[in-house]
């Protein structure tokens, strides 16, 4: 021990010893990696393990059941129902966000007085907490005192107020409200890309006599390809796994069943029915579906890229 201490002292006496760049690099990334490993990677693995158990959410009792949860899942009509609702919600909201987002980005790309301000304002819905977006829209769409129904009736567009959160319209109103909340993501992504398209391309097209539609179709759209690819991927994944907006929209509305998407169903199984094992199986299936969809989507994009 004393020998080592002496050696250490000698080292210290010399100019400070430095760690190599590789060691420093690993050391610097380590805290971040450990946190991600412990709280994202490990839980994913743990989820798979849990999905093989019959486990109560609160009590420690657990029992190995192998693939029983997955077998049950295949015959669970509520699962298929929630999957279908999740797909409707994800595709509906993603498609509408995409169209609205691209149109809005094209408008905000034009020069006009007050453009900076409008660009900032447009982001509001995306920046505010989901709870605020939900309460303000549930107030606007309230069937008795809400502004929207009042105006619809006053302007003679409908005879009876529409029960937006009732069984019949709750999915429509949820999709509309979600599009309002999440479209700014598409706007900002597309706008950032629009700003990097070289103006010479448009000038050349103008010289060639291309119409505005022609310029959009043959210059803007091809340039936006890559960003739209990423935006569609991210938005559909995030909409498919969206929990808070959907859950809060259905809370106490009486028509929650109509918008019970897969994330909501997985949550309910775990925290309402206390079936942690089954809840985990639902989450694992969700993850597998996302991975499969992502791989298929990439394949498709690459094939089109080669064809183009």
């Amino acid at each position, binding site marked *: 021990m004393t020998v080592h201490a002496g050696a250490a002292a000698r080292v210290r006496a010399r100019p400070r010893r430095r760690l190599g760049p590789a060691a420093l690099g*690993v050391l610097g990334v380590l805290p971040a990696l450990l946190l991600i490993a412990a*709280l*994202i990677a490990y839980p994913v693995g743990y989820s798979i393990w*849990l999905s093989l158990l019959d486990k109560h959410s609160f009590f420690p009792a657990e029992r190995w059941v192998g693939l029983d949860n997955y077998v049950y899942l295949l015959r669970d009509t509520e699962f298929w129902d929630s999957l279908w609702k999740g797909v409707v919600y994800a595709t509906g909201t993603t498609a509408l966000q995409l169209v609205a987002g691209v149109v809005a980005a094209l408008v905000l790309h034009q020069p006009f007085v007050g453009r900076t301000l409008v660009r900032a*304002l447009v982001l509001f819905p995306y920046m*505010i907490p989901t*709870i605020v977006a939900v309460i303000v829209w549930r107030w606007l769409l309230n069937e008795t005192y809400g502004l929207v129904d009042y105006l619809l009736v006053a302007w003679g567009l409908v005879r009876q107020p529409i029960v937006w959160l009732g069984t019949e319209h709750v999915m429509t109103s949820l999709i509309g409200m979600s599009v309002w909340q999440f479209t700014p993501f598409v706007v900002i992504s597309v706008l950032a890309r629009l700003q990097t398209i070289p103006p010479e391309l448009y000038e050349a097209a103008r010289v060639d006599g291309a119409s505005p539609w022609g310029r959009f179709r043959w210059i803007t759209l091809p340039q936006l390809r890559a960003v739209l690819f990423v935006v569609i991927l991210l938005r559909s994944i995030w909409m498919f*796994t969206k929990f808070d907006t959907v859950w809060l929209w259905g809370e106490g509305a009486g028509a929650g069943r109509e918008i019970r998407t897969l994330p909501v169903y997985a949550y309910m199984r*775990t925290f309402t029915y206390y079936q942690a094992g089954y809840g985990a199986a639902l989450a694992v299936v969700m993850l597998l579906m996302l991975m499969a969809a992502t791989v298929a989507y990439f394949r498709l994009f690459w094939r089109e890229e080669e064809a183009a």
Partner: protein
Amino acid sequence: MRRVTRLALYAAALGLAAQAIFPFLWMLSTSLKPPREVLATPPGLVPAAPTLDNFVRLLTETAFITYFRNSVLVAGLTVLLTTLVGAVGAYSLTRFRFPGREAVAKLILATYMFAPILIVVPIYIMARRLGIVNTHTALVLSYTSFSLPFALWLLRAFFQSIPLDLEEAALVDGAGRPRAVAYVVAPLALPGLLATAIFTFTLAWNDYIFTLILIASDELKTLPVGVQDLFAAAVVDWGLVMAAGVLITIPALAFFMAVQRHLVAGWGSGGLKG
């Protein structure tokens, strides 16, 4: 540009601005109305008899202040931890060569798509096992690990854009790495750090699901879950709920406005999630 096109452009811009902020104006308007006016027909945008009564009741009769304090505390700690760990990690990813560096970058991108619902079950059970269920520690750890992949990605892009020469010049001049980082790199990376901070703050401030599953006692709840409880009452007191909405929106908005200019740079590299 032709006049008609111009007119259409301004109409479209106005429409875009209106759809984004009108709901907030309506929320603000309702929050300033006395109960009878809240439910009046026809509803008016400008309150006839504006009052702060809803705000007073919110602050004195509900636990709003407690929720607010909890939210500030949790979001603040998350920002500090994420920015620190993220900055050190991203700096290391761009400045030192080490085996697996590219793999780490790819892993980070993969976790970017991740959503909390996919792991809430194991997170909850892990937190129970560790005995940190119903603590702010559990929340800060969850938010940090969720914002880290993105923070690393964003900061990595920023550090990559800072020329190595500047730093090397400082190192050659005899400044140690800590000083080179503090005086040369940090000021240039400031926009990136701010973008990371606001992204993280927003994620923690807005989160609903982690508080929902991890926090049981009322005095530890953060705003979104606390306000949802107000909203879940048998008869919804809309004036009160809208007042709460206004007060939650203000800090997020103020923070957003303060760093908005720096933010645009962050968005270019994809500074959003949710």
